[in-house]
């Protein structure tokens, strides 16, 4: 059974329909990326899945007992709020300290346990958010533009971490991203969203789909080139090119 099933979902804010008739599923262990222009409803879709947005039609079904690890888009901690990394991580999960240490290691930032959250760098902060999401051994990780504010190297490293985490824990990953080429190479499946699902499939299929090209226009030229370029140097591209050929 799929971890998350979205059926005929519509979301409205007042007069404004941001999502209409969206169908999608997330199977266990897969990395799915949602791409789409600004205002295409990416964040609304994620919010609908965690129950933060009322649905105007359709259904979101979560596998019973599904544990969600959520990494928010940006988390502003007011400088007036003193809180250590450890306290932050254990805020909603009353887990042993040892689990925090392990989660921080998985996220690639050991030794931060006693630091103040407000003193972390952008990259460290995002990794602590990731560690916090991992602490309860989630079945699925949800990431909403988790690399905003990181430079290109930082975000590439962050996505590598996500892949490593998936390999280590086997959890599914659903993420939103603007950084098309980085994300595309790391995903099993890409969903291209613009109020509705324009197209979906393996990264190569989506990248060559006319709907996708229409949405991202000339900007994709570079991203696509980069994407292809990267795959020229990978050895595991047989699967995606096969799917592209289908």
């Amino acid at each position, binding site marked *: 059974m799929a971890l998350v099933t979205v059926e005929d979902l519509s979301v409205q804010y007042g007069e404004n329909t941001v999502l209409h008739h969206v169908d999608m599923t997330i199977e266990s262990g897969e990395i799915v990326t949602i791409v789409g222009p600004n205002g295409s409803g990416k964040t609304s879709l994620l*919010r609908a899945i*965690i129950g933060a947005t009322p649905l105007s039609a359709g259904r979101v079904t979560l596998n019973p007992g599904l544990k969600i*690890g959520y990494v*928010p888009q940006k*988390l502003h901690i007011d400088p007036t709020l*003193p*809180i250590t990394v450890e306290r932050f991580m254990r805020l909603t999960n009353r887990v042993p300290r040892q689990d925090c240490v392990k989660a921080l290691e998985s996220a690639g930032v050991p030794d931060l346990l006693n630091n103040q959250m407000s003193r972390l760098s952008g990259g460290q902060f995002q990794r602590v958010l990731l560690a916090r999401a991992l602490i309860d051994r989630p079945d699925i990780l949800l990431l909403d533009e988790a690399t905003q504010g990181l430079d290109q190297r930082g975000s590439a490293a962050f996505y590598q971490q996500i892949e490593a985490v998936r390999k280590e824990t086997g959890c599914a990953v659903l993420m939103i991203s603007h950084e098309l080429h980085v994300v595309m190479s790391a995903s099993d499946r890409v969903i291209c969203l613009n109020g509705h699902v324009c197209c979906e499939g393996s990264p190569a299929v989506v990248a060559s789909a006319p709907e996708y090209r229409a949405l991202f226009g000339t900007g994709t030229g570079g991203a696509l080139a980069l994407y292809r370029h990267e795959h020229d140097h990978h050895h595991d591209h047989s699967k995606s090119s096969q799917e592209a050929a289908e």
Partner: protein
Amino acid sequence: MLDDFMTRATLAGVGVALAAAPLGCFVVWRRMAYFGDATAHAAILGVALSLTLQMSIFAGALAVALIMALTVTVLSGRGYAMDTLLGVLAHSALAFGLVAVSFLSGVRIDLMAYLFGDILAVSRTDLLIIWGGAALVVALITWRWSELLTATLNEELAYASGFDPKREQLILTLSLAVTVAVAIKVVGVLLIAAMLIIPAAAARSLARSPEAMAVVAAVIGGASAVIGLRSAYVFDTPAGPSIVCVAAIVFACVNLLGWQTRDKI
């Protein structure tokens, strides 16, 4: 012991400080300072209504503060910026309150007592209400502490953890209304926000965890109440403002010392 008006005043001041401290931390963290102010200003309308209807000041102030806080919560995010909305509602409520009070004939009302507090006139019943209200606020905030903190950090994080951040917001709103209602007698509507914000702000640089900040704020608030009242007695100054002055001096000292130590490191 409670026969002495100074003892009653001190207990009242400490009671308000204890409730205001943890709530004040959230007001500071969530940048709700103006929200606290607005709720407090609205309370004067509640005072006027209670005097007209001859009911308890606490009940009237509580009701209006609650309506005000809920109205702001509901209207926020619907067209006007939060500070504009609060500016309109708070000052209208204050103005309507002051006008309403002027209509009250018969009883001569000392408006100053409600604007700046009348802590030296705290009765045993008042004391009971203040401590009851303070206990309620402290209990509510302690009970929901982790959830309140999570909701303060990020709404989606709260949803993903399985609870509704709007409910947590409501708990803070409710606590704010209760605190405002019980603090009117102590510091008056114009200075309630000061009791919320100044001890919490002063505690910031002395604390490394949110819990410590709330406790330190409570200590600073309580001490300000005791020292402020004592000074008011000695120097014959108004009690409520004296308490706030002491808290402000503590805030200034903590920050000046903080700067010095930071320069040395």
